[in-house]
């Protein structure tokens, strides 16, 4: 898979956002999603095989972080896509807030 295809998936983009500034264990990443741990694991595998995240093992736990050097050519695209994703989330949250009033 080419890099753009890997980051075309909104969940994989969200994973990259989570591990952009901080290394996180797989379990913590999975907690952010409403999909199964197995599905999150598959996305992590795709990101790892594409060389976009680095993995560190500590006992049975695996820690992931974004490989920013590998992602550098795509950084401005990612930032724009993240911003739009956050805008959409904000709209949804506002709509929910208004409904509950």
């Amino acid at each position, binding site marked *: *898979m*080419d*890099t*753009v*295809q890997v*980051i*075309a*998936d*909104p969940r994989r983009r969200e994973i990259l956002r989570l591990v952009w500034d901080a290394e996180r264990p797989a379990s913590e990443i999975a907690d952010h999603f409403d999909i199964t741990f197995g599905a999150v694991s598959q996305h992590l595998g795709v990101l790892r095989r594409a060389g976009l995240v680095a993995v560190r093992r500590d006992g049975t736990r695996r820690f992931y972080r974004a490989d920013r050097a590998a992602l*550098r*050519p*795509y950084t*401005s*695209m990612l930032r*724009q*896509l993240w911003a*739009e994703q956050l805008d959409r989330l904000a709209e949804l949250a506002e709509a929910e807030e208004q409904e509950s009033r």
Partner: protein
Amino acid sequence: MTVPAEPVVVERRINARRDTVFSYFTDPARWLQWQGIDAELEALPGGRLRMNVRGDGYASGTFTVVDPPHRIVFTWGWEMAGNPVPPGSSTIEVDLIDEGEVTLVRLTHRDLPPESRDLHAQGWEHYLDRLAARAAGSDPGRDPWLVDNP
């Protein structure tokens, strides 16, 4: 066989006349002012279109309708191995609607697989902003989506 996603529809009102806007889809030098770094295009029915969009691979297709200054239709796909949108698999229709001094551009991208819809929708939002700036006479600047070191 995957069921194609709903078409992506992106609209922009551009402060330029229709024939001006149309030329940004038919003249390779003009197209490159809003999208891509290398383009060959032969804007005639049956003519080819091939473009390095972000610097990391080529998209290509064939024009099927070229009706100045109303409508242009071409197939679209990515040449990179394993891409879910291979050349010929999806279709882009561009309709230009005359609103006096302003042109409404409606781009409809059909037959994308569901996993590719989101990125193409955001891509056309991004690129039609650049087209709108350029066709109205300003400089959209370097495309931030261009990769620096493919």
